[in-house]
């Protein structure tokens, strides 16, 4: 639980100066099911990357080509869109057990 700021230390005018600071928030905690990619089936078509509302599909590239597709489990909310739209059914939604 981060300490709340006081009015003297807050920048004025409702300004938030740290861009992209929501990446600190672990929305991965929202999941009940998590997407698991079968890298053997995956063709690196990148559709899951384009269709993730939370930008939680990470692309690893080498020489401008996509070589691996991974899930950002810290942020992934487990909506299941990626599993639904994968053309080769390489993604399955697995119940998260913690």
């Amino acid at each position, binding site marked *: 639980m981060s300490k*709340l*700021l*006081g*009015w003297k230390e*807050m*920048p*004025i*005018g*409702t*300004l*938030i*100066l740290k*861009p992209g600071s929501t990446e600190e928030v672990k929305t991965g905690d929202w999941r009940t099911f998590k997407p698991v990619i079968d890298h053997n089936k995956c063709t690196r078509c990148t559709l899951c990357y384009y269709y993730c509302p939370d930008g939680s599909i990470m692309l690893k590239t080498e020489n401008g080509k996509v070589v691996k597709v991974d899930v950002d489990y810290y942020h992934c909310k487990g909506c299941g869109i990626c599993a639904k739209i994968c053309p080769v059914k390489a993604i399955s939604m697995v119940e998260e057990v913690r």
Partner: protein
Amino acid sequence: MPKIVGLTGDEAVAHAVKQCDVDVIAAYPITPQTIIVETLGDFIANGELNAEMVHVESEHSALSVVTAAALTGARVFTATCSQGLALMFEILYITSGVRAPVVMAIANRALSAPINIHADHSDSMAARDSGWIQLYAENVQEVYDLIFMAYKIAENKEVLLPTMVCLDGFTLTHTLERVEMLDDDVALKYLPKKPTYAHPISIEEPATYGSLALPDYYFEFKIQQEFAMNRAKEVIPKAMEEFTKVSGREYYVYNAYATDDADVIVISLGSTSGTMRSVAKELRKKGIKVGTVALRVYRPFPAKELKEVLSGAKVIVTMDRTLSFGALGGPLFEDLRSLFYDEDRRPLIADVVYGLGGRDLTPSDAKAIFEYGLEIAKTGHIPELVKFVGVRE
């Protein structure tokens, strides 16, 4: 040699704005502010003013446009009054909340209904809680001068609060008076340097402006604004002092006349102060001890300064050109009563509500008000807290 010209209040606003090297103007016409926008339009069309005039489709958009523009660090201006100010109402708080140093001229006009295009202060008074600094001009020279001071105050990095310069509709906006203008270079030297905003929109350092604050943070932002208002209490007299130096015209948060030994002091805002002072001068010739305070800064309320100048009087008559329905009196009356509540030396304070919808306050009305004050001083008793002047039963 400073130029001396005849200008109406609206024209004076436009000339001052031009000399302030404003960048973005957005305004929607409303009588009696129209000449401001028209004159600025002329300046832009003739290349005398290098600014963008955004011809917005409503006052709400006018303030939205200039508030957003101010976030880029540009110097901005808008003008409105009455219904236009009322339409902008939600944005007034937003402009103050994001601390955009917008300067707005208010051509004080009565609020509908019934619709009325003439002078009274109900419009700007309705906005007194919005976190805007409020300055009131007594004559066209003051209108002109206060615009420069408004930018100086609003853009001060310790303040960064939007500022209204109020001028009475028709009485000042459309009346030709003598104005001594500043030289262009003098004006620019007086004004702050751009960018005008604390953290202007930057691609290199992208920030979020106008965030959402839940109950855990909202309160702190409001305290910041209040703190800025308090800072303004020091910044304003300094800005006025500096202006006095460059213009040769004396400026302070009020303009007092014969208050040192006055039994009755009448305090007012706007053009009526001129009438009251000139009648006071007549009465003084007869040895009657009256004085006037023409208040220039209404928000932040200059408590310290007013206590000093008013506490010697037996009676203070506050003149309110607005009616705060259901309240104990007008805004100025309530502020002054609050001011003196804890003091040992407490003048009797009575309120006069006058001039609504542009109803004229004649010199004889003014004389009657002084006499009313003197009567209270004699009897030590206020017959009615609020006296309406010039109303037919």
